[in-house]
């Protein structure tokens, strides 16, 4: 367990990382540090966002960079179980068509209006 403050946590899980708390400018650096080395060619990396209550633009930047890095290596970054608040952020930001989002292990086909199984 790596803490980046009492409001945030990073936990290693079988196929990736589990984040909890608020992902913002102050908590992004450890997430980037933990994510980057886990991106492998043709690999599938999961980031469990079920416990994430807030993401700001700095947090989006980290997730987008990791997504790009995974795609560049023919891999895939899976964002799993985002809360409604986080899903709404992805929707507003216009990222739903680009990111791979799944709920409870099944990758969801998010729609243009942002509806999702987590809603």
């Amino acid at each position, binding site marked *: 367990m790596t803490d980046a403050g009492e*409001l945030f946590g990073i936990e290693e899980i079988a196929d990736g990382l589990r984040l909890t708390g*608020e992902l913002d*400018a102050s908590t992004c650096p450890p997430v980037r540090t933990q994510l980057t080395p886990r991106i492998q060619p043709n690999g599938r990396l999961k980031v469990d966002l079920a416990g994430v*209550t*807030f993401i*700001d*633009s*700095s947090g*989006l*930047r980290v997730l*987008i960079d990791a997504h790009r890095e995974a795609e560049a290596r023919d891999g895939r970054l899976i964002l799993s179980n985002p809360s409604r*608040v986080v899903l*709404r952020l992805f929707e*507003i*930001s*216009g*990222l739903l*068509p*680009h990111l791979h989002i799944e709920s409870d292990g099944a990758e969801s086909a998010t729609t243009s209006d942002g509806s999702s199984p987590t809603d």
Partner: protein
Amino acid sequence: MSTFTPERSFSVERRLGRFVAVSIAVLCVAGVTCVVLFNAWARAADDRREVRSAVDSFGELSLSLSDQESGVRGYLLSGDESFLDPYNAGVATQIAATRSLSDVLARAPVALAALQVVNSLADQWRTSAAEVQIQQRRESPTVDTALVADGKRQFDMLRAQLETLQAALNVRVEELDQRVVNRQRVAVAALVVSVGFLAVMAIVTGRRFHQWVFQPLKTIGVAARQVSLGNPMKLPSFQAKELNDVSEAVNALQQSLAHERDNAVRSYETLQQSAVLALHVRSQLTTDADSLDIDGWSTASASRSAEGVVAGDCHDMGLLSPTRMYLLVVDVTGHGPLPALNALTAKSLLRSGLRAGMTPGGALTWLSNNATTEEDMELLTAFVAVISLSTGRVQYASAGHPPAYLVKESGLEELNPTGPLLGAFPATWGTDIADMPVGATLVVYSDGLTEVPNEHRIRLGEDAVKSRLSAMPPGSDARAVVQRLVDLFDEFRSGPPADDLTILAVTFSDHDALVGSRDSVEPGMVGT
């Protein structure tokens, strides 16, 4: 990083464990050996004590034979039967002493054989000499002198055999004395060697512990104190793996501290150099947008920077023609001079695109294609709108920006993004259209409003903004709308704002004021 030599490395725990195990094994062996040897010593001493008691029994045996001989001789001279009492008592004593000696001399065959010879000669003397002489004396006053001489000869042989028995006993005693001394020496020597070996093991263990643990810890402690004094000291590699790990960790910590210190110094220098620039950029960001004086329309804006930094937000409003105005809000990731410069650049490019006749979506696409490379570009959200001052028609595009709202008598209309935020993925942005009736207000804000937290880390959120806008009194103008949202922001937040805040509002307040004062022909727009 210290150089680590795997061949020489070891685990202190394992090494000391071996030392302890060997010490315990040696202690066990030494203890058992000492017990065995001391028992042997004790047994030899017991044997010697028994043989020495046999010497006493030998004296009784010798005395009993002398009593028998003197009793017979007195009786032959006097004929008095009382002289035979010592003879008879001596026989009984001889039997008892012989039994005692036989038990003691069971493990001394030479002495035991001598004892058996003594008893045999004594029996022979009594039966062939003493008893015959006693019988003759009872029958006549004189005894055959030849018989007396033969008895004397037999008793002399018996006396000689007694001396042989005594010599054998003495030899046995000397043997046991020597054995006791030898076993005593061996037992004491084993004890001394065991204690000595354990002492050596304790000394060696102590020295190794000092060499493997205390000395490295002392060195690490000195290095830590040097670090606290600002003099990093590279630690050497140690033989002990555990201490070597600590050494490497301390070295890495020193490097990290030095790196962080260098970064802090560079950041401080950069901050000093950029301070003047930051102040200039900040003035540009906050003064470009202003309230416009347009008949029939009212505009207002508010912006606040995050505590102590230059904003990454900026906004702008202006006229593209007598009948068209534009407004835009840009929010770049982060705060400080660089994001502010990026925001300022984006604002300038968007404004240039609009003035060149591009649609809002076209301007965003043009910005995405020309502003910078995708990898290096900061994430950026933007809302761009062009409003017809004569009809209230709004052409807008949003790059991942929080929804704008049209506050109308009939309710709120949400103006959602027409494409992703800039800098994330290659994309194009469309242009949507909405209509502003008279009395309606267009409200655009940055995420600093909805994401502001209260003391419980709860965010304000879109619903609170929509609720506050829905509750606006009819006829509220742009200034009143902006003020209500600023009040909402201030009422909700706890502590200084951590993000930039921008709010922009435009109200179509009076259509009649426009009649005759504007050119009713709107220039066309072109997309890219």
